């Protein structure tokens, strides 16, 4: 018996043998569905059509697919012009290049200009694996979160990636969608609620001693940690913060107050990411001891995704240790 929240309608096999799929796969599906629903949607690719999962959209809507070549700055600015005209462009590349390479173009011509371009950054985090540090984007949330007018979403699994893509298409605002390369557990189902700006409580109850706020595929590690802790008699809550901006302040403050200690979990630098965002809210509204799980001012390196997650301190054991440390600081 675990404290999984029934309302979250998570996959029945979540702790046994959950399906495995990359969040970028969910994006590919969502993009085709969004394209079916709205003829204004166009997809731009910078020579990475297959690995960004735009391939299916390209096949189904060739006249709405635009290849810009290896030119991420051009992709952002061409999309700004298209959105200014009235299209809904999705721009796709690896997060290291977009928004890594084209941040100023996104700032000026998309966010300040306030035109609805959806920036889709694939291969975020160290879990890209063998490609190494150049391709392991760990600063994108900080970059995009600091930008007024920009919505920032980091889906926890493939199904949520699909829903986030559909929701972004309907928003009419600049959006950053963050996706991973690797196959990761599919925790949510078609019935799981997804609303931009509304955090999903997945695990816990009134006796929680620590509130875990997690984003991206590491939500699964947070759930594994919660289950392990529960077997040791330590109750925690786990909230999936899929929307990093705007933050669901109400849920975060409520869970933090209820538990009295907090652990944040993200595959990103601890500077400027989810942990920083939550610390900003809690410092103002409910000062609470916080431990941060994330990369600590280092670049990644080549390796297998799982060993990199462990090496950089984002494994289940690290989350468990952080919970104990945070709870002890109450």
């Amino acid at each position, binding site marked *: 018996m675990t404290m999984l929240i029934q309302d979250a309608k998570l996959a029945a096999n979540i702790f046994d043998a959950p399906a495995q799929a990359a969040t970028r796969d969910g994006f590919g599906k969502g993009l085709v569905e969004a394209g079916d629903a709205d003829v204004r949607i166009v997809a731009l690719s910078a020579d990475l059509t297959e690995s960004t999962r735009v391939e299916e959209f390209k096949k189904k809507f060739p006249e*709405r697919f635009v290849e810009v070549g290896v030119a991420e*700055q*051009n992709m952002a600015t*061409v999309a700004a*012009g298209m959105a200014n*005209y009235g299209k809904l462009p999705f721009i796709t590349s690896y997060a290291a290049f977009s928004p890594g390479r084209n941040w100023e173009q996104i700032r000026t011509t998309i966010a300040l200009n306030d035109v609805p371009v959806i920036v889709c950054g694939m291969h975020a985090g160290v879990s890209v694996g063998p490609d190494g540090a150049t391709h392991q984007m760990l600063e994108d949330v900080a970059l995009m979160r600091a930008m007024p007018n920009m919505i920032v979403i980091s889906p926890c699994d493939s199904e949520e990636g699909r829903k986030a893509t559909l929701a972004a298409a309907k928003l009419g605002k600049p959006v950053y969608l963050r996706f991973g390369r690797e196959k990761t557990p599919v925790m949510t189902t078609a019935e799981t609620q997804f609303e931009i700006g509304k955090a999903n409580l997945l695990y816990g109850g009134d006796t929680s001693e620590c509130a875990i706020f997690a984003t991206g595929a590491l939500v699964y590690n947070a759930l594994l940690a919660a289950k392990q802790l529960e077997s040791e008699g330590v109750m925690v809550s786990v909230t999936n913060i899929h929307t990093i901006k705007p933050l669901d302040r109400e849920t975060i403050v409520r869970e933090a107050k209820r538990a009295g200690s907090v652990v944040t979990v993200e595959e990103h630098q601890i500077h400027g990411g989810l942990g920083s965002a939550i610390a900003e809210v809690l410092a103002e509204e409910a000062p609470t001891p916080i431990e941060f799980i994330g990369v600590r001012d280092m670049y990644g390196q080549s390796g297998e995704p799982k060993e990199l997650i462990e090496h950089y301190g984002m494994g289940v054991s690290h989350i468990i240790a952080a919970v104990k440390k945070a709870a002890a600081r109450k």
Partner: protein
Amino acid sequence: MWKREPVVSSTRYTVLMEALTDAEVKRLENKASAIRQTIIEMLVAAGSGHTAGPLGMADIFTALYFHVLKHDPHNPAWEERDRLILSNGHITPVRYATMAHAGYFPVEECLTLRKFGSRLQGHPERDKLPGVETTSGPLGSGLSQASGYAYAARMDGRTFRVFCAMSDGEQQEGNTWEGAMFAGKYRLSNLTAIMDRNNIQIDGMTEDIMPLEPLRDKYEAFGWHVLEVDGHNIPQFIQACDEASAIAEKPTLILAHTIPGKGIRAIERDYRWHGKPPSKEEAALFLNELRTMEGKVASEHQ
């Protein structure tokens, strides 16, 4: 291959493909002089801003807003309007002044340039002032935006034209060439780029700072049709815009050779006037010079 529909003149601002009368040329030249005077007045009031570029582009902006562009100052969001994307946002005083003279807003509002609460931001913002089309300032991003706009409009079979005014200095930005490559690949014949070839940038002359030539050859190699004009010869510039609209297979670049600071001898060709405004005393002299030169400038092409 997509072919553009013939342009149909539909407003009082459009007299495409018709020979300019001497009276019309004189009207435009006087308008340009009035716009230059407004530019000087607004820069003095602002106490900061760029002088040389706006003065140098006054003739071209006059030709655009008073002859070339299909637009309606009382309905800036008119769906069928031609779009003018300003890439080098720092010369926005010339756009503001020209828009005011064209009737978008009162000329007096120009004096709020760069002031707190003004719609006339130091660099233009789409959300602030209807009609400026896009937000710009950081250089090198306008040609790509205009290309994306033109591409999207063509997808829907729209017949308005997209213009992009850009500087020569921003040809040093890589993003400009990415845009040029894109427009060339997709043969965006509904796009006309206008380069203000005034040879100056903040630190000096372009060919000393980072040489740009041969610009014509470069754009032709990127798949563009290139026309070169005297950027102060209004009939010649208008004729180039007409020719650009007749080119069906390629985007067109109008390489407009201009004199930075044109119209005021103390400013002309001096790169030190790129980024500073005149003092009140200087402005009085400059305004007097513009007013006394009006008749003479107008007679040059007669």
